[in-house]
């Protein structure tokens, strides 16, 4: 396994214009990720997690700085990057009138996979995530969690080297959370890189071998969980609250709000 970083981000900046107002979402992210690492990318709402993931995956092409994935510049060789990555978005926007198998068939063909092989793989994953019975039903009839499972499977069909997940566990039942955690761990053992953002601190704490905390568009902490907590005995949740400046007691305000 090469020790060359599979993800290299240099001074990544991104801002959105709204009339005359400029909202700077990312203010200079620097990051290197080695193969086989499981990165837990955490931060409060609006910190810039999804934007970072979208830029790395080629969904946003106007940004400042450099982003390299698997040795390819996302601006110059987006196709090569997309061949090697899998992406699970935060929102399950899928065509409601197609079935999972029809969708997987389309994705496989577009990725140039051997169709039967890819569909066999899809069946196995459907079975693992306990939705095989729904394989040929229209996605429109699915719950949020079932749609999320379809997204997860479609990102795994081509067995990507790097998997980007934006809140992959949202809406999943407890059994599926365990399965996805097992898939993540197994993929990492095979040398694949997992980069996922989540709000579920207990999962991040247990699965990730490196945690990156982003707040207001900059990285405020980067290391293993034990490195981050230092000599203290804080949970990741407490650590998160402290580093994002939200470790004050809100009991009084909450009580005030409800009394009023």
């Amino acid at each position, binding site marked *: 396994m090469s020790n060359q970083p599979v993800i290299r981000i240099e001074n990544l900046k991104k801002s959105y214009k709204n009339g005359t107002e400029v909202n700077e979402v990312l203010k200079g992210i620097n990051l290197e990720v080695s193969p086989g690492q499981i990165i837990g990318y955490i931060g409060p709402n609006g910190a810039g997690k999804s934007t970072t993931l979208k830029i790395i995956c080629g969904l946003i092409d106007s940004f400042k700085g450099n982003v390299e994935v698997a040795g390819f510049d996302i601006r110059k060789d987006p196709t090569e990057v997309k061949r090697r990555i899998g992406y699970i978005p935060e929102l399950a926007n899928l065509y*409601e009138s197609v079935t999972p198998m*029809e969708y997987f068939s389309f*994705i496989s063909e577009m990725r140039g996979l051997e*169709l039967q092989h890819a569909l066999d793989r899809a069946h196995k994953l459907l079975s693992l995530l306990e939705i095989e019975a729904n394989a040929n*039903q229209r996605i429109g*009839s699915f719950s949020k969690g079932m749609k999320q499972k379809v997204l997860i499977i479609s990102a795994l069909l081509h067995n990507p080297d790097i998997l980007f997940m934006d809140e992959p566990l949202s809406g999943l039942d407890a059994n599926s959370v365990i399965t996805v955690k097992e898939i993540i761990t197994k993929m990492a053992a095979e040398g694949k890189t997992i980069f996922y953002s989540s709000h579920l601190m207990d999962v991040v704490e247990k699965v990730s071998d490196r945690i990156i905390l982003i707040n207001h568009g900059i990285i405020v902490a980067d290391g293993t969980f034990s490195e981050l907590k230092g000599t203290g005995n804080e949970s990741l949740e407490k650590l998160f609250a402290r580093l994002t400046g939200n470790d004050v007691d809100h009991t009084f305000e909450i009580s005030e709000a409800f009394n009023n």
Partner: protein
Amino acid sequence: MNLKASSFLRPLKYVVEKTGANFLQVCHLVDLRLLLDNRKLNPNSSGKNKDPNNTLVRQSLMFVLVGTFLPLMFSKSNDLFLISFSTHIYLMVMVAVTMMSEYSVSLFDTRDNNLIIPLPVNGQTLGWARVLHIMIYLLVISFSLVLPSLVIIGIKFGIASALLMFAASLLNTVFTLFFTIFLYLGLMKLTSGDKLKDVMMYIQIGLVIFIVVGYQLAQRSFVTNNGAEVFMSPSWRFLLIPPAWFSMLTTLWQIHSTVILTGAVIAVVLPLLAMVFIGKKLFYGFENTLVKLSAGDTSNAKGKSEKLQRENTFWFRFNSILLGVSKSELPIFRLMWKLVGRERLFKQSILPMLAYMIVFPLFLVFSKNATGDISERYLTFVYFTVMTSSMIPSVLCIGSNVYTLWIYQTLPNLKPSSVLSNAMKAAFARFFIPVFILMVAPLFYFKGVVALADIATVFLFNYFVAIAILYFQPPYFPFSQSRATSQGGKTVLRMMLIVILALPLGFLHAYLSGKNGWFPLVLSAIFLLVLILIDKKWFPRKISWKLAEDVNKL
């Protein structure tokens, strides 16, 4: 529109409250809908935010333009009843068709169910809010349509007649709107759930055909043409046709008869009664209707499995070759083939257009006043198909699959133009081509084998127009946009422009055909060349992922 609903809806307060609705809540809900309409970005001009008020003004101007044709048609007539009857019948058709094709979706929009249904709002309030929101737009459209007629009537017959015409037009719009809603809601009492939307779709198509045919027949049956003058003599039998009531109200100042007075009374009373009846009886439980519809949206094929079919029939392969789908694009073409056949909102829009495509021009071909050779007239009729093909690119955007752009963005080696053009090709193949073949078949009977040249030319013209419109419109991804209330007027303008473009080409075609039956193939070659250039060169160059992202962002 930056007006507060409570100010201009105040005249309706009594009627609204009489039906059990909460007027204040109705106003808040209408305000919210108007605010959302205002917040819609205009994606033209590289994603710059434009003032949506301009869109409504532009839309209204287009309808004024369309409305100008009406008084021009009857410029020689001095019969106020005839002029107003034609205007009212036209207004009724336009309001009903616009309501069905563009605003019925707004009436039964279930996307904000999760936000609105949990609030303490009763069915009458919800129903009124939806209807009044639509009514505001329809009244603006109606006023724009009849404005030229109002001016002509004012000049020819006096201010009083013009004012009566104005009032009658408002009442006509309200009546037509509530009549259409009556049909929809009545239907909902009979069926529900998943079936409802399908039934609604086919009823809508049937209604559109009925209205268009009725419009043609009504004019033919009641107009007297004695050679020197065209006129109408209102009698008791006129009371059977709704547009006549409003014409009677318009002519109340001029003609003093019991028939006219009866019609005028009906014109005033019936819209008000319709409002009260629908508000009281049919809006009751409207919130449950929306919940049912929402269930209909998602219960699609629940428990029903569909066998995975990899479309590869002869018809599929034939069309992929005919429409120039490359091997690498086949998976997208295949996906779009499935989607165009399943997306309900899309089918709801395209099927009435196919109905128009056949029904409407037939009146021109087989009209008793038509002149010229039947085969030439039939060729003109076939050229009318361009009205449908020109609409395909815009109706393809309609659907509830928001922000599916990411699916394509994450796939390697794919251009956004490929998705858009293959969706258009799939729609063309599954809907337009079968009807087109049916329509052009008689040309062989009229002209023999040489008809092939005509058919190829007209087909390539249709395809060229569709590809060209796709090139010029914002790159909305297939089935991703709601039928925005601000888009209405563009449709009419586009149809007019297409007719203007088609006319000289049609004449050129006829001229070439007159010289030699095969000569139109020269035109075919030109169309083919240009459309290949657009489809394979210019379009992929024009549409970047950045532009697609800007236009399709949530």
